């Protein structure tokens, strides 16, 4: 019947091999293009991303007080530091700590310390004016922060994060 001599598959690449590889590749691309939306849908949605920045009037905060405001669903501490607290923070600059930073690098104005109020260990909210350094103490697993929000003791790996912010006037600050 047929005159074509069937080539015994040796190391020669056959049409069939090509079709297998091509089919496999298309299937792989298909699988990835389905997996991507499946994974990506779990990331923050547009409304969460669009969360506006917050403007806060800080004129009424007396020295020595910490005010907590909400930004991106997280608490932000605005601490009006007293002269003693500023001095304690600056004196601490040369102490050995897990995440060394000078007090100067963490504030725009020495009286105002603005940090995200989320413990860098596992996310609890530290308690103000507590702990060995009178900065913050995290009740969850005992992390101790100083009056510059730097981690001094306990399991937290990083200092309290400083959010992006700007002073609009002397009494108004915009976070975000």
């Amino acid at each position: 019947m047929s005159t074509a001599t069937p080539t015994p598959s040796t190391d020669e690449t056959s049409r069939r091999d090509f079709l297998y590889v091509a089919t496999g590749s298309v299937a792989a691309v298909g699988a990835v293009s389905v997996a991507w939306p499946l994974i990506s849908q779990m990331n923050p949605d547009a409304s969460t991303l669009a969360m506006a920045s917050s403007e806060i009037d800080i004129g009424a905060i007396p020295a020595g007080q910490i005010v907590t405001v909400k930004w991106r669903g997280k608490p932000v501490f605005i601490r009006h530091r007293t002269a003693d607290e500023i001095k304690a923070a600056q004196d601490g600059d040369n102490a050995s700590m897990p995440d060394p930073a000078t007090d100067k690098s963490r504030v725009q104005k020495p009286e105002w310390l603005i940090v995200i109020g989320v413990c860098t260990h596992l996310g609890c909210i530290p308690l103000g004016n507590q702990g060995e350094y009178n900065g913050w103490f995290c009740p969850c697993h005992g992390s101790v922060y100083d009056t510059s929000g730097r981690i001094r003791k306990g399991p937290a790996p990083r200092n309290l994060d400083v959010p992006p912010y700007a002073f609009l006037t002397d009494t108004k600050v915009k976070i975000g």
Partner: protein
Amino acid sequence: MHGLSTFEPKNGFVKWLEARLPILSFAHGSFVAYPTPKNLNYWWTFGAILSFMLIAQIITGVVLTMHYTPEATLAFSSVEKIMRDVNWGWLFRYAHANGASMFFLAVYIHMFRGLYYGSYKNPREVLWILGVIIFLLMMATGFMGYVLVWGQMSFWGATVITNLFSAIPIFGNEITTWLWGGYSVDNPTLNRFFALHYLLPFVIFAVVGLHVWALHVTGQNNPDGVEIKDVEKDCVPFTPHATMKDGLGVVVFLLLYCWFIFYVPNYLGDADNYIPANPLKTPPHIVPEWYFLPFYAILRAIPDKLAGVIAMFAAIAVLAFLPWLDKSPVRSAKYRPMYKALFWAFVVVSIGLGYCGAMPAAEPYVTVSRVLSLLYFGFFAILPFLPRWEKTLPVPATIAEAVLAKSGKVEPPKPEPVKAAPAKAPTKSTRLWK
């Protein structure tokens, strides 16, 4: 030979069905004729108890879902509505909440049983690993269920546990944001936890199916840890013997379960979870549910974030390697004096860790949990070396012999070296009735 009795349908419909889907003979082979070792004790009823609890959780869970609202501003009040307004709502919620505790109590006993009698050894490695997977799935399910209430402990427990992933190098923060669907635990987190809390029990159900399948391939282990040699002499049929014994086990367990539901329904819970979630205030003392405490203690014992998280997961993962860590040819702790002592030390260490996990992160608990964490891992580290020092006791040759020796009908087995004794793949005769 087909096990201890055969399934011979007489009824016309049954014959018709058998020819098309042999489900009845399958059920008969698995739950009626299935040969169970004669020497099983009540620790072997926990498999049935666990199956019962899984069904109970699914039924009460579906009922709760009919009245629950998975939305951050409404979730807490919908749970309160279940408690106050829904007909019998309090019963279903207390049954579900305490059911989770009972489920974990049973699974811990079941696992310690396996540990004591060496049930993880050749040829039951896959059976054991499937069990570890079920345990992990249960932990994920229990954790997410607890979040659904959206009380203070729900919220802050969720925050602390999801933050564990932020310890992962480089991508940690991206992964946590992805898990949350936002920048903190919030409504998107609650929604996805609800979807997964509904899904995972059915995944558990499927893995339990595999677990039982693997069990029916290798056959059950037994208190003496010797394989079945002769089905007729060593075994009794599952029904009525195991059915009745399991039934009694379930009923006694139900008494305890009911005592919790009707007398102390909130004893195992945390009062803080009756306060609605407040993202701006952490409760002074965060504790997970009791069944997570030993692992939580290990997490807190280590002063480094990443190392703490690794140690915590390792404490569970190490269980999966047990079949290869324990090199003794003898299965049951009954015949392993050193292992037996070590086993009980391990039980005490685990309970001690649980106790430390419930205490505040202060001295002396920190030091104690460090020592106990070391001992916990020490147990697994010492197992491979144990056979070098341990002189095992003579193991009975067969289950029948063990049973007869116990009732004094036969001389106890003569001391003989037991080096190559059990740990063998199932012999031909034990495979016949699978």
